[in-house]
C-alpha cells in the first residue's frame, strides 16, 4: 500500500504546522519523518492516520482518495508515543481490542481471536505477559504491546509517533534493531516520527527531513547524511563546522570546485577535517585547545587565528600516528565540504 501526500497544509491558529507538503511513501518501505520539535512531523503523521483533518490537500492510499475517510475506516495501525494502552484491560484484551470491536459479521470467533492474539504476542516475544495489566510492564514491554495491538487489525499502513521517545537509551537501541527486523518480517508500509537523527539513519529505508512545516530533503540515510540538500539538513544531521569564504578565502574551495561567489559558506563535518603538521596553499592555521578521547574516536577542539572554534574528529588509530597535544600549532584542510550561498540563512 503506497501513500501519496498532496499539497497538505495545516494551521493551528496563527501557527503554520504544515505548509504545502508533498510526499510519496512506497509500498512496504520504512520511512522516517525527522525534524526538530514543532517542525510538523507529528501533525503530518496524524493527518495520514486521519486523527487530524488537513486545511488543504489530499491523502491517497494506493491511488484512492482517503482525505475525508474517518480514521475508523482507514485501516491504519497507530503507535502512540506514550503507548496509550488501555489500563483496565489485560495485555491480551488490549491486543484483542481491534478484533472485538468489529461489526458482528466480520468479527472473528473467540477461538480465532485467541489464536491471532497469541500469534502477535509471540511475534513481539511477550506471550508470557498476556494476563498482566499495562501498569505491571516496563516501558519497552508496553511499547511492544502497543505495536502488537496496532498490528492486530492487519493495518495496511503502520504509523509510529516517536515510538522510542519515552524509553531510556539502552532499551531504545535494542528496540530500534528489533523494529527493523520486525518490519522485514511483516513488511507493512510504515512511517515513523522521530527527532533523533541517529534513530532515523539507523532504522529507516528513507528519511524525510522536515523543518518549519516544510520538507527539506527526502532520501536514503546515506544520501541525506552525505549530500545534504540544505544547510539545515547539514546541521541537523550531526556536528558541522562553518567556514565563510569572505573570512577564510580559498579554504572554502574543495578540490576542483570553484567558489560559487564571494559570500559562500562551506559546511565541513568534524571527521572531514584533515589535520597536517605542514602548511600548503589551502590550509588554515589553528591551535589545538583540547584533546578528548570519546570511546573509539578522538575529538580535537581547535581555534583558528581569528578565534573561531573548529571541531575535528579522528579515529584512535589515526590519532596514535600523530598524537597532537594541546597548545600545538597545526594546519587544517577540508577533505570534503558542501558549499552554500551565504544568504541561505538557517
Amino acid at each position: 500500500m503506497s501513500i501519496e501526500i498532496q499539497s497538505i497544509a495545516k494551521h493551528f491558529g496563527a501557527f503554520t504546522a504544515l505548509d504545502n507538503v508533498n510526499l510519496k511513501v512506497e509500498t512496504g518501505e520504512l520511512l522516517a519523518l525527522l525534524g526538530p520539535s514543532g517542525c510538523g512531523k507529528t501533525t503530518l503523521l496524524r493527518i495520514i492516520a486521519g486523527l487530524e483533518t488537513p486545511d488543504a490537500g489530499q491523502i491517497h492510499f494506493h491511488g484512492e482518495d482517503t482525505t475525508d475517510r474517518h480514521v475508523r475506516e482507514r485501516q491504519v495501525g497507530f503507535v502512540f508515543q506514550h503507548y496509550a494502552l488501555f489500563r483496565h484491560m489485560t495485555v491480551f484484551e488490549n491486543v484483542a481490542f481491534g478484533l472485538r470491536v468489529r461489526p458482528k459479521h466480520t468479527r472473528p470467533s473467540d477461538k480465532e481471536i485467541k489464536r491471532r492474539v497469541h500469534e502477535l504476542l509471540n511475534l513481539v516475544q511477550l506471550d508470557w505477559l498476556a494476563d498482566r495489566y499495562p501498569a505491571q510492564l516496563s516501558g519497552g514491554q508496553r511499547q511492544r504491546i502497543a505495536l502488537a495491538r496496532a498490528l492486530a487489525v492487519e493495518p495496511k499502513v503502520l504509523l509510529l509517533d516517536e515510538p522510542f521517545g519515552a524509553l531510556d537509551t539502552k532499551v531504545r537501541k535494542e528496540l530500534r534493531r528489533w523494529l527493523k527486523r520486525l518490519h522485514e518480517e511483516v513488511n507493512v508500509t510504515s512511517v515513523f516520527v522521530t527527532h533523533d537523527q541517529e534513530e532515523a539513519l539507523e532504522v529507516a529505508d528513507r528519511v524525510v527531513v522536515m523543518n518549519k512545516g516544510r520538507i527539506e530533503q527526502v532520501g536514503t540515510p546515506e544520501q541525506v547524511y552525505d549530500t545534504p540538500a540544505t544547510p539545515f539538513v547539514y546541521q541537523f544531521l550531526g556536528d558541522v563546522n562553518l567556514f565563510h569564504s569572505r573570512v577564510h578565502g580559498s579554504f572554502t574551495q574543495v578540490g576542483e570546485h570553484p567558489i560559487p561567489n564571494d559570500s559562500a559558506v562551506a559546511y565541513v563535518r568534524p571527521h572531514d577535517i584533515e589535520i597536517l603538521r605542514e602548511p600548503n596553499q589551502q590550509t588554515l592555521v589553528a591551535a589545538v585547545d583540547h584533546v578528548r578521547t570519546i570511546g573509539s574516536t578522538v575529538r580535537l577542539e581547535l581555534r583558528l587565528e581569528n578565534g573561531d572554534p573548529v571541531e575535528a574528529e579522528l579515529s584512535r588509530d589515526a590519532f596514535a600516528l600523530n598524537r597532537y597535544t594541546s597548545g600545538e600549532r597545526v594546519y587544517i584542510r577540508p577533505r570534503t565540504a558542501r558549499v552554500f550561498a551565504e544568504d541561505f540563512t538557517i
Partner: protein
Amino acid sequence: MAELTNPVPDAALRLPMQRVDHPSAPSRAGMMQFKQASVLPGFNLALGYTVVYLSLIVLLPLSALVLKTTSLSWSAFWQVVTADQVMAAYRLTFGASLLAAVINLFAGLLVAWVLVRYEFVGKRLIDALVDLPFALPTAVAGIALTTLYAPNGLIGEWLVPLGIQVAFKPLGIVVALTFIGLPFVVRTVQPVLQDLEAELEEAAACLGASRWQTFRKVIFPATVPALLTGFTLAFARAVGEYGSVIFIAGNIPFESEIVPLLIIGKLEQYDYAGATAIATVMLVISFGLIFLINLIQWWHTRRHGMRK
C-alpha cells in the same frame, strides 16, 4: 464537602500508597519504630494535639453512644432496632437513598461529561453552581424544594394532572436526596475525565472502534472507580440526611418517616435508649460505607495504579 477538590480518593488512596512509597525506608531503630526519623520539628506537638482534639470532639462522644447502647440487653436492643416502624423507616431511608444515588450516578456522569468535554455559554457559572448543595443550608433546600414540588407549586402543579405527587410522599424524599447528593458523582468523575488522555480514545478509533464502543469499552471503565466512589458518598450522605428531607417528606410513620427523624422522635419522648440503639445501627452502617469506599480505592490502585 472537602470532596470538592479532592474527592475522597485522595484520603482513601493514601492507605495503600503509603506502603508502596515507603516500603521499608531504612530506619535506624528497625521495624518496630513508630515514626520515621525526620529533621522537621513539631511532630509531637502536632500529633499530640490532633489526637487529643480528635478524641475529645469525635471519639469520646461516639464511644458514649456505643456504651449507652450496651445498657440495653441484646434482646431489648434487637427489639428496638427491628420494630415494625423502624424497619419501615430503614426500607424508606435506604430505598430512597439508593434511588437518589442511582439518579445521581447517571446525571452526575452526564454533567461531568458535558462540563469536561463541551464548550457552551455559561459553562463556568454552571460548573461553580454544581457545588450549591454543599453550600446551601439543608433547611433552605428543604423548604425551597417543598414549595416547588407541592401540589400547588411551580413544578408540582404540572405533575398533579399526571397523577404524580411528589411533596409529602416518598418520592419527595428521593427529590431532596438527589439534590443533596448531586455534587458527589460530578466532582469525583470530573477530574478523571479531565485527565483521561485523548490518545486512548484515538487509539480506540484507529483500531476501528465506533464512538459508542470507545465510550463503553475505554472511557466508561476508566471512570468506574470514581463513579462507585461518588455513588457511595452520595448514598452515605443521603442515608444520614435530615434537614432537607423533613420538610418535603410528610413524616407519616410507616409511610414517609426516615430513620434520622425516628431518632429525633424517640429523643423528644425521652427514650434515650431507643434513640441510641437506632443511632448505633446508623453508625455501623456509616463505618461500613467508609470501609467500602476505601476498599474500592485500594482495589483500583493495586490493579491499575499506573504512574507516569
